[in-house]
C-alpha cells in the first residue's frame, strides 16, 4: 500500500530570481535525453497534480506570494526541492535589495541540490531523494490519521 508514492512522483517547476541556467538544466533533465519517465516522473504544469515542487533561483519580494500560492495548491504529501546555489542561499543575487535569500525563507525545503548551474544528473538524484521523503511524509500522515481515529 505504501510503495506508490515513490513510484509515481509528478513534478512542477518554478524559476525565481536567477540567470535561468538551472531552469534550463531542469528542463534538460525532463527532456528525452535523460528520460526521467523511467522513474515514473512526469512533468505537470499544474500544482494540483504535482507531488514535488522544483524551485530554481532565489526568492525576491515579488515571487514570495507566487511560490506560496503554488505550494499551497499541492495536495499532501508534497516535497520541495531547491535547485542551484541561488535557491539555496540567494547566490550571486544575495546582496540585491529585493532578494530575500534562498527558498527556505518561505517554504520548508526537503532536498537541496547544489551547483551553478546544477547538473541534470544531480537534479534527477535530488528528485529521487525527494520521493523517499514523500514516502516518509505519507507514513506520518497515515499514523496521524490512525491516531485521530483512535481518539
Amino acid at each position, binding site marked *: *500500500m505504501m510503495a*506508490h*508514492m515513490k*513510484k*509515481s512522483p509528478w513534478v512542477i517547476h518554478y524559476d525565481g530570481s536567477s540567470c535561468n541556467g538551472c531552469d534550463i538544466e531542469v528542463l534538460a533533465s*525532463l527532456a*528525452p535525453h535523460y*528520460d526521467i*519517465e*523511467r*522513474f*515514473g516522473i*512526469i*512533468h*505537470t*504544469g*499544474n500544482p*494540483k*497534480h504535482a*507531488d514535488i515542487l522544483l524551485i530554481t533561483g532565489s526568492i525576491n519580494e515579488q515571487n514570495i506570494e507566487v511560490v506560496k500560492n503554488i505550494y499551497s495548491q499541492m*495536495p*499532501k*504529501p508534497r516535497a520541495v526541492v531547491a535547485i542551484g546555489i541561488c535557491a539555496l542561499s540567494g547566490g550571486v543575487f544575495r546582496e540585491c535589495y529585493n532578494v530575500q535569500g534562498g527558498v527556505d525563507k518561505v517554504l520548508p525545503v526537503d532536498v537541496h541540490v547544489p551547483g551553478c548551474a546544477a547538473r541534470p544528473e544531480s537534479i534527477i538524484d535530488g528528485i529521487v531523494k525527494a520521493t523517499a521523503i514523500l514516502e516518509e511524509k*505519507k507514513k506520518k*500522515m497515515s499514523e496521524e490519521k490512525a491516531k485521530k481515529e483512535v481518539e
Partner: protein
Amino acid sequence: MNLLYGLAYILAAPALGGLTVGLDRIITARMQGRVGPPLLQPFYDVAKLFEKEKAVVARSQNLFVLAYVVFMAFTGMLFFSGGDFLLVIFALTLSHIFLVLGAYSANSPYSFIGAERELIQIMAFEPMILLAASGMYLVTKSFYISDIVRTQVPLVLLLPGLFLGLLYVLPIKLRKSPFDLSTSHHAHQEIVKGITTEFSGSTLGRVEIAHWYETVLLLGFVYLFFSFNPLLALIAVALTYVLELFIDNNYTRFKWALALKSAWLVALVLGMGNIALLWYYMKGL
C-alpha cells in the same frame, strides 16, 4: 444480449485498459528514443493518486466525476453485452457530459476552457461514429452489437470510408495529438491541464480509470469492422492503436476550429460518401 460479457468487461476492462496505456507509454518512449516507464506505471500513478490528500475545489465535482466513471463502465457494458449501438453512442456522450459538468463546477478559467473544448470535441466525434453505426446497420440490418459482431460479411471492405473516418476521429477520444485540446496525456500540457486542471488526488484517479474503460470500448469499435475473423480483428485493433500512437508522436495539436472542421469534413466526405455509394449499390442489386 449477453450480460456475462458485459460483466466481464466491468471487471477486466480497467486491467486491460491500464495495460494498454502502459504499453502506450513504453511505445511512445521508444518512438522518441527513450526507455520509458515500467509497464505497470499507470497503475502506480492511480494508486498514488488515491493515497493523496483529498483536496476538493467544489463538492459537486466528486459526484459528477463518479457519474462519469459509472456511466463509462455502463456504456462499455452495453456495448460488450451486445446492446444497441445507438444507445452506446449516446450513453458515451452522456458520460462525457458528466465530466464537462464536473469541470464547470469548479470556478476556474482553465477548467472552463477545457470543458468548452471537450464539448467541441464531443461535437466533432459524434457525426462520424453515428455514421459508422448507420453504415453497419445498412449492411447487417441491425443496430444490435450482438448481430453486428456475428456477421460474416467483412464490414471493413464494404465500409472502408467509415473505417478510415473512425481512425481519423479516434484520437479525439483517446486524448491524443492532433486532437488533445481539452486535456492531454503523459507530460503534454495545454492551458495547464484543461478539463482535469481542478481535479486532484482520488478524483483525478477516477478520471484515469474512466479513461481505461473508454480505451477498451473504443478498441471494441475498431474490432467490429473486422469481426468476421476474430484473430484478424485483434491484430487490426493492435495495429490501429500503434498507428494512433504514431500519429500522436508526429503531429502537433490542431486549433479547435481546424479539429472540428476537419472531423466534420472527413465525416461528410468519407462517411456520407461511403454510405451513399453503398446505398446505391444495394439498391441496384
